[in-house]
């Protein structure tokens, strides 16, 4: 069944920009304040007030647009989008209509597990607008009233709209993860979905191959020359995690397929529908259609001056972005020979961890070992102790030194983790950690002497090995460890076998 149609998905993402104050006034944007304690005459739409744009908000929007490879028009303006809703005190939202600040960008996505080929998702536009307030339904349940909190009103949002280039719920989820990674890397938003800093609406429909039972309608220009039939588009809202987006789209694709089989209704034959995702029930539900409200009667906001951006300013922003996640991923894989998995683990931890890894890898001269130590041990300790790299007490140079000394044999491999732990707990270098643990490197001559002594005392082991049972040496390793806990068991085993062979 899954081969019988193509799923077409486009996303609208609203990202809260990381400013201290709102887009058009000085009210704080801090999350979690008591309702209606962060408002002023400007953001609650009192007559006679005038909005003035937050420079930082525009800069962050520009930064994002450039990172998404968007075209930045030289001239942009703001428009009023008119509609009536209790959480919109001015009865219009200041948004951008026909001259958005950026358009025609793209973001490349890939699946580490290879479920889909690397693809370029086109960004239709990204524009800067203000947020609305919040309706708190639950708190006054039973009273028949809704409580409106206008703290969020006027918070700067960047609305990012993709072209309908996504072909599966997994691609949609991957796009969102990659977008979040990019936005957090360039520091424009914390992208916290729980606090509403990142919100996603999804548009979905199906393209079904035209079959003999449903040929193109004669005389209908839109059907001619087409080999597929498009079903009506549904917009899904209320998804509170990337996983929820994926699940909602999976559910909706199936629902649209069933609906198509029952009704054979095509795109354009019914108005666009809005459905809300119920995460607990795992279904989408129809929402009241706003058939008339799509007439927003946009016009330029006379209260705000347009903004011009020169090509030189755009280049300045481009130069300040630093290495973006996609380039960094390529460098880790090509330059450091890391697996796609290791590269992703490092990048998803954020810039600080990547910088730390690069220092360790370059100084230790062994990227694979550096990746193993950072992704397994360092990240585990950070998680267990709920701390950051800065306060971990293990500078990159020290971890690199540990890796080098393990390689040189100065730190016995089997006890390397103890040394690592001691270095963190005592905040010391390798030498001090070895000393505190009483670990001394065992040199080759000591190992040979120990092996000779134990072999002499265990003639049965020698005869067993000679009879082809090399694993008999195992018994000696245990004894050797008791005599000197620092020995490298692998090397000790090799020496024993060599001695038995040369003694022939």
């Amino acid at each position: 069944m899954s081969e019988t149609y193509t799923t077409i998905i486009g996303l609208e993402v609203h990202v809260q920009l990381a400013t201290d104050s709102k887009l058009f006034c000085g009210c704080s944007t801090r999350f979690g304040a008591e309702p209606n304690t962060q408002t002023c005459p400007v953001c609650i739409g009192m007559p006679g007030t005038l909005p003035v744009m937050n420079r930082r908000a525009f800069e962050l929007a520009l930064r994002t647009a450039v990172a998404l490879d968007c075209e930045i028009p030289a001239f942009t303006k703001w428009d009023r989008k008119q509609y009536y809703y209790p959480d919109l005190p001015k009865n219009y939202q200041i948004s951008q209509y026909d001259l958005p600040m950026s358009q025609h960008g793209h973001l490349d996505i890939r699946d580490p597990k290879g479920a889909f080929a690397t693809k370029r998702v086109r960004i239709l536009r990204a524009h800067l607008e203000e947020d609305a307030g919040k309706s708190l339904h639950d708190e006054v349940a039973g009273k028949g009233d809704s409580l409106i909190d206008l703290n969020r009103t006027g918070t700067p949002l960047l609305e990012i709209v993709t072209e309908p280039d996504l072909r599966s719920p997994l691609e949609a989820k991957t796009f969102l993860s990659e977008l979040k990674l990019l936005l957090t890397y360039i520091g424009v938003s914390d992208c916290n979905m729980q606090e509403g800093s990142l919100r996603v609406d999804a548009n979905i429909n199906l393209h079904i191959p035209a079959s003999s039972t449903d040929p193109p309608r004669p005389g209908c220009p839109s059907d001619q020359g087409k080999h597929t039939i498009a079903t009506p588009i549904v917009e899904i809202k209320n998804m509170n995690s990337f996983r929820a987006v994926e699940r909602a789209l999976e559910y909706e694709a199936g629902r649209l397929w069933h609906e198509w089989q029952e009704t054979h209704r095509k795109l354009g034959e019914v108005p666009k529908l809005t459905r809300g995702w119920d995460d607990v029930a795992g279904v989408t539900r129809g929402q009241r259609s706003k058939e008339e409200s799509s007439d927003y009667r946009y016009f330029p906001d006379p209260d705000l001056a347009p903004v011009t951006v020169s090509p030189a300013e755009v280049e300045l922003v481009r130069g300040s972005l630093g290495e973006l996640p996609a380039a960094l991923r390529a460098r880790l894989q090509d330059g450091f020979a890391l697996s796609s998995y290791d590269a992703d683990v490092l990048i998803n931890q954020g810039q600080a961890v990547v910088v730390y890894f690069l220092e360790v890898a370059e100084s230790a001269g062994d990227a694979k070992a550096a990746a193993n130590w950072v992704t397994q041990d360092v990240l585990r300790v950070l998680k267990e102790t709920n701390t950051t790299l800065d306060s971990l007490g293990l500078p990159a140079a020290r971890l690199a030194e540990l890796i080098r000394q393990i390689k040189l044999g100065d730190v016995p491999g089997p006890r390397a983790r103890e040394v690592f732990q001691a270095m963190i707990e005592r905040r010391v270098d390798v030498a001090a950690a070895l000393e505190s643990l009483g670990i001394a490197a065992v040199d080759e001559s000591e190992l040979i002497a120990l092996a000779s002594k134990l072999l002499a005392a265990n003639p049965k082991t020698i005869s067993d090995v000679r009879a082809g049972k090399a694993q008999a040496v195992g018994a000696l390793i245990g004894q050797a460890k008791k005599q000197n806990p620092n020995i490298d068991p692998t090397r000790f085993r090799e020496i024993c076998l060599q001695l038995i062979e040369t003694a022939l």
Partner: protein
Amino acid sequence: MSLSRVEVEKVALLSRLRLSDAELDTITADLAKIVGYVDQLAEVSTEGVEPMAHAIEITNVFRDDSSSESLPREEALANAPHHDTRGYLVPAVLGE
């Protein structure tokens, strides 16, 4: 320029205004006159004139991103027809 009753009904709905039949008659006539008045602008030839986005030719008016004091909540809520001292109370917002 004529304005139909259906158009006025639509604008009224978009503005959340409930108008009686008599009001619709009066308002349709009044609005038609207003639109006709503004429509005189169409007599001017705008051939070769670039559209403008703003009446005053200034651009890039910004403020710094620093937060300032907000209104005390009781003042913010003072003019609301209904409130519970924490927030504005409105007829239940359903259908979402």
